[in-house]
């Protein structure tokens, strides 16, 4: 399979001209094959969201290059859809109108875009809530609305920034299954940021472990569990081995991150 996405030596420093620059990313290299499911895991503040902003063309003062099918990305790209970490549904639009938003922007007629939006709403399991406003939905439902909205854009590469971060373990597991279902139905390339090791192993072909500041790639683990998978795979011994391996890698980074953050707070 050809690489649809190539990230070459990407670095990004916030407040570069100030007294305390923050090196969020430092020389990140990553290739992703078409149709692959890759999770990115790393301590809080290590630059995961920043990496997505670079891939999505939302940051332009970075170093290095992002290529999609060999062509460098400059600004937002039709092939890349982002689901943001923060609450991102439009509070003044119903679920249906939220999901239809990217189609509306593209000038798709009302009837056609509503029909398409309904399809994606069904796919994320929100049918019956088409006419609800975000304020009338739970946190998880809002995030699913955001996922459906990005799916409706029909990007070839989906960037999911902890879409289910705030949910309880059981719901998250079921939504994980949902994501796998969607992924196999739509044949998209998925990049998922998560704090949850179980989720990363359950869903991915590869798990990218990032190090704490400066954000670099510490290790990439191939997950060779058979597909199709569902949340049942969690109880197998192979699964446990992967989780253990990732946990060890992550613990080093997380504790280093905590220490540095504490030192920083103490210094100020």
């Amino acid at each position, binding site marked *: 399979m050809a690489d649809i996405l190539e990230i070459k030596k990407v670095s990004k420093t916030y407040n570069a001209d100030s007294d305390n620059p923050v090196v969020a990313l430092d020389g990140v290299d990553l290739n992703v094959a078409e149709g692959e499911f890759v999770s990115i895991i790393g301590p809080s503040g290590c630059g995961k969201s920043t990496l997505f902003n670079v891939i999505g*063309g939302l940051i332009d003062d970075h170093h290095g290059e992002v290529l999609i099918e060999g062509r460098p990305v400059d600004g937002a790209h*039709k092939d*890349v*859809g982002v689901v943001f970490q*923060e609450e991102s549904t439009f509070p003044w639009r119903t679920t249906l109108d939220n999901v239809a938003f990217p189609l509306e*922007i593209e000038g798709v007629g009302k009837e056609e875009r509503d029909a398409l939006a309904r399809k994606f709403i069904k796919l994320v399991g929100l049918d019956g809530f088409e006419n609800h*406003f975000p304020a009338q939905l739970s946190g998880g439902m809002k995030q699913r609305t955001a996922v459906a909205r990005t799916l409706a854009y029909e990007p070839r590469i989906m960037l999911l920034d902890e879409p289910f971060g705030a949910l309880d373990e059981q719901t998250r597991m079921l939504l994980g299954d949902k994501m796998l279902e969607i992924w196999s139905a739509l044949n998209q390339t998925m990049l998922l940021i998560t704090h949850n090791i179980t989720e990363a192993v359950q869903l991915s072909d590869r798990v990218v472990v990032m190090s704490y500041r400066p954000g670099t790639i510490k290790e990439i683990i191939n997950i060779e569990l058979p597909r199709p998978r569902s949340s049942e795979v969690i109880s197998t011994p192979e699964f446990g081995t992967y989780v253990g391996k990732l946990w060890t890698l992550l613990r080093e980074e997380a504790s280093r991150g905590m220490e540095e953050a504490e030192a920083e707070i103490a210094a100020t």
Partner: protein
Amino acid sequence: MSKLHKMPIVVGLIGLLACALILEYSVDAGWVMQLVVPRPSDTILAFPEVQADMDLFGNFFVTLAMTAAATLLALIIGVPFGYFLYRNTRYGVAYEGWLAAAFAAPTVLLYPLFLVIFGRSHATLIAMGFIPGAIPIIIQTRQGLLGVSKTLLNVGRSFNVSERDMFWKIQLPSAVPTIFTGIRIGVMYTLVNIVAIEYLIDFGGLGRIVSEMYFRFDTPGTYASIIAVVFVSVFFYWGFGRVEKWLRPV
């Protein structure tokens, strides 16, 4: 939940009625000078008299129309100007303080100047109503746009929206609640200014009637026409509430 909680209008009216009864009794008992505050019942009886004498109802619509025109003008100029101050940070920072200061100024006192420019006309009323109405709309538009969530802007950018769609479909709806706070404040000041000018220059709608009743020492008539002004304000408060609900249902 009690039934009363579900009927804010009824509860409000009951409260109003209670106050009226207390006032009625106080006037009767001589605690309140009748020359200053008439009996609520006399005020109510004054409505048909003022109507017959000076067409209260018709003038209600004159003041309403003047206020609507001034507010519309304040919106047409205030929202784009607020957007301009938002886009041009330097101007925004530079002018916000001045605007707030200007809002505090009693612009109503400038009416002789406006009389010179526009004469004793509807244009004077609209212009004098426009000034205090536009300022809070400008300030709140800028604040509302500054407060738009960065994530929502990024959603727009990630879907490649044009600058135009970004404004109409993301920034403006996000800012609606804040802008409407400005409109609500603005429309009240517009109304007060317009009625005051009507009173001062003896021209136009309800303010002119208040002035006429006042000079006739017709206290119940004065109160009746002031209550008509309150109805104008209630109308706008209710109307803008409806519009906001329509723009931002939840």
